[in-house]
């Protein structure tokens, strides 16, 4: 069994570990991987390499552009048929595997339980798949009468020259519903991240702004980058509703295309997962003048802070009072559970390698119950998610990034909210921060090890060095880590638990960590006879 290190006097210098990791690599790889590892110093501006190609042959945890586009951003919206154009696998693997919960009303469309595919065969690869795609769209329309259809390109589509955008335009005209395509072939980018960007562009172009409906309700907000894994968005909806915020649309969890169509009438965008959705936030600000703020509803303190930040923006006494009332009531519940779990959790060590925001957000949640994060990194983030948006102007645009279109967005003269722009300026003058993601590294401990796109070999070495009490990652790492005697918490799927967002979520997570950090069975891994002297003899053997 794993024996623990004493880290009560601060984290050990990880240089030795880094050297050991790199020693295994051929020189060129060692040089590249070295730049993706940083021994953190929160007081310094340190550069980390991120959003670059994974080296072939390396066992990475990353997925593809299609996964980011269809799986992550478009997947959680229920009133659209997401039609995957390609061989069957891509649609199959993204079929209900991400735990985006949704709550359609009786009689309302919900296509999320279905997998739709053109199931391309070899003749479609040889002769082209556009005709089959058109037929599939017609058949989907005839059978299901959706109001929108999204078309997702898989690897072969771009190569054989199928033009999904032309097909989408043609079918849109023919059927009279909203149909749009995504060039999200798996190879387009270095990770899922490219797919997020492509999805943002598509949703902004084809959905946002389709309905300039009259405004209803006060304090209108959108929640961006919240995917309702395990019901996270439900908990936030509960809080917003009670406080008096009007949530127009979530991108994308428990979401509908219908709501996204009028999301541009909001007064404020709140960004949870900066990596996957900042593009829409930026474009909505440029076009419609809606400011955005970074929020974090993972952790009780973070939730309180984020609610206060939103209330402060609207500067309304009644709203502020309600928010404070909620915080006071919920924090009392949170504090009670925190006290209960602390004996089991305080002083424990965690590491997390996941996503483009969760590896940061969950550190706050761990901190609340006395767990120290010794090492962390993202799977598909960019430098700004580590170092903060201040580095954006310095990020070198490489060929892979150039590959993904940056939409040029201009001001909508009719709908642009000058009042919000003015409000923003005023608040900024008083020190309120907008568009303000500071990244993961400034908040991490000195000497904690930050690693981007961590791979299998590095994971093994990290466990050996830190002997963490809990490791947070995804399904591919889960049983590898657990076989080493360390419990793993999945932070993509929550191990079929959750919600972990908001106050209720924090309570759920505290309790989950209490369970994981005091699981009895780990003490029974070694059979009792392993610690006894070996018995020599043949008394019971019947010869």
């Amino acid at each position, binding site marked *: 069994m*794993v024996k623990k290190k004493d880290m009560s006097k601060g984290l050990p210098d990880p240089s030795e570990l880094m050297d050991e990791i790199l020693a*295994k690599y*051929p020189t060129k790889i060692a040089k590249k991987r070295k730049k993706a590892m940083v021994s953190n110093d929160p007081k310094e501006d340190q550069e980390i390499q991120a959003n670059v*190609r*994974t*080296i*072939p*042959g*390396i066992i*990475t*945890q*990353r*997925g*593809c*552009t299609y*996964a980011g586009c269809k799986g992550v951003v478009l997947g959680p919206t229920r009133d659209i048929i997401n039609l995957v154009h390609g*061989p*069957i*696998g*891509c649609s*199959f*693997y993204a*079929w*209900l*595997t991400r735990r985006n919960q949704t709550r359609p009303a009786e009689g309302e469309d919900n*296509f999320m*339980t*279905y997998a739709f*595919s*053109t*199931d391309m065969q070899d003749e479609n*690869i040889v002769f082209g798949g556009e005709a*089959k*795609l058109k*037929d*599939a769209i*017609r*058949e*989907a329309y005839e*059978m299901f009468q959706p109001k929108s259809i999204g078309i997702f390109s898989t*690897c*072969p589509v771009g*190569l*054989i020259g199928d033009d999904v955008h032309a097909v989408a335009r043609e079918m849109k005209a023919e059927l009279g519903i909203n149909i749009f395509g995504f060039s999200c*072939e*798996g*190879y387009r980018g*270095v*990770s899922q991240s490219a797919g997020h960007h492509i999805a943002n562009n598509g949703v902004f172009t084809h959905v946002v702004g389709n309905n300039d409906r009259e405004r209803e309700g006060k304090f209108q907000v959108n929640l961006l980058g919240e995917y309702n894994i395990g019901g996270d968005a439900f908990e936030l909806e509960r809080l917003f509703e009670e406080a008096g915020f009007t949530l127009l649309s979530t991108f994308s969890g428990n979401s509908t295309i219908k709501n996204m169509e009028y999301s541009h009438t909001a007064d404020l965008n709140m960004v949870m997962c900066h990596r996957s959705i900042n593009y829409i936030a930026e474009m909505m600000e440029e076009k419609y003048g809606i400011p955005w703020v970074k929020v974090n509803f993972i952790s009780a303190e973070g939730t309180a802070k984020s609610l206060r930040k939103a209330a402060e923006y609207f500067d309304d006494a009644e709203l502020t009072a309600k928010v404070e009332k909620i915080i006071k009531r919920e924090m009392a519940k949170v504090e009670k559970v925190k006290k209960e779990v602390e004996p089991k959790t305080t002083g424990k060590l965690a590491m997390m390698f996941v996503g483009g925001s969760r590896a940061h957000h969950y550190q706050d949640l761990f901190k609340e119950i006395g767990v120290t994060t010794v090492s962390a990194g993202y799977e598909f983030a960019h430098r700004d998610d580590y170092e903060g948006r201040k580095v954006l102007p310095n990020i070198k645009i490489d060929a892979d990034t150039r*590959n993904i279109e940056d939409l040029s967005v201009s001001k909508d003269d009719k709908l642009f909210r000058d009042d919000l722009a003015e409000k923003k300026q005023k608040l900024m003058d008083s020190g309120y921060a907008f568009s303000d993601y500071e990244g993961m590294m400034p908040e991490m401990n000195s000497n904690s090890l930050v690693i981007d796109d961590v791979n299998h*070999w590095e994971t*093994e070495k990290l466990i050996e060095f830190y002997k963490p009490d809990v490791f947070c990652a995804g*399904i591919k790492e*889960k*049983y*590898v880590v*657990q*076989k080493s*005697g360390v419990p793993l918490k999945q932070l993509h799927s929550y191990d079929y638990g959750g919600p972990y967002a908001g106050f209720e979520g924090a309570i759920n997570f505290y309790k989950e960590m209490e369970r994981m950090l005091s699981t009895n069975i780990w003490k029974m*891994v070694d059979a009792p006879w392993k610690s006894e002297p070996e018995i020599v003899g043949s008394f019971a053997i019947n010869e």
Partner: protein
Amino acid sequence: MLLRHTTDKVKERKALTVNPAKTCQPVGAMYAALGIHGCLPHSHGSQGCCSYHRSTLTRHYKEPVMAATSSFTEGSSVFGGQSNLLQGIGNIFSIYDPDIIAVHSTCLSETIGDDLGQIVAKARTDGKVPEGKHVIQAATPSYVGSHVTGYANMLEGIVKYFATNTDKLINQINLLAGWIEPSDMKELKRILSLMGVNSVLLPDTSDVLDTPMTGKYTMYPKGGTTIPEMVSMGDSLYSVGLGEWGTQKAAIALDNQCKVKFSIEDLPIGLKATDRFIQTLSKVGSVSVPESINDERGKLVDAITDMHQYLYGKRVALWGDPDQLIPLTEFLVDMDMKPVYIVSGTPGKSFDKRMKAILGDRVPEAKFKNGAAADMHLMHQWIKEESVDLLIGNTYGKYISRDENIPFVRMGFPIIDRIGHSYFSTMGYMGGLRILEKMLAVIMDYQDANCPEESFELTM
């Protein structure tokens, strides 16, 4: 309703697949390669494929599933993936040190025309394959066949690379396993040992995807068919392929390459298919059937006679892979159940022929279909037309089960919401008992939950 848009209005579709009863080739190649000892599968394509396949296999087995990828970018997609694969092979041997790398292609690398054989040969001449190490390959275009096709292609790739005929016959048979669970592999080995027939089982995922907790992670677990075993397959007396879809290609390759004659049998699921398997073993191994096997058979027959009243006439819908569905359907019919709806996304002409032969007079109302147009949505629509008493298939059936309130037994791939398949086999007579027990459990649970209180029974 979870599948609220599904109606009973079946309409011929020529282009749209909804809720597939199959997935793509590479995941099968990855699974097959995990059944050889010391092997790291490698996916030659974009990294999403590898990620999806590892995730699916991990969810199914709750075990580590390791594989590497060529991590294609736009550039490799345009100029070819040769340099990615060459670099990948070199890196894998220096960092992860497997004995064997099993490379499979993807729709991406196949579409651009990468020739795996040529690239792997270049890796050898470039010195990227260390002495005593091996790289094998299989072309697995995702737009042909299904996950079963990929499994079959990798098995063929394995025997083509390793099996060697030295003209010195070895007193053993080759047992080529179709796509079955680690528990099933173990059960096959147990049956072979009861029969007293020496054999090489290929692949063998037992002790690879069902490993014990020891507190220490081992990248290459102790299970899997070994290199000497695979080499020796060329000198075996005979090959028995279990499952036409999964094993025929490898059996033919062994015959062509090493002159090992073969026969293709059904997977030993249920009574008759197991009978045929035992008879084949008895014949090719020149052994008589031991009393212990007779006992096991007798136990299964005994349980069927005892429980016949609960199963008789029950209408069943099944989906999955032909190699499983054919003997399973036969088993159900032998118990006087009515497998009325059967779909498999895996193409193959003999499916229809076999199903007709099994169902023909016994269940004339049965509808069955395989290939690209046969999906779970079609089967669900059939169920909407006239319901069934039992569903048997992979985890995706749970949505139909809940919407239609139909008892559900999980069999097939993937099962991602329950455990058991790794440990408890459905092969052989004992496996037949397991299937019987699982069906009875859900049927009786359904009766207990839904019958009027006055007819609630204590005993059966």
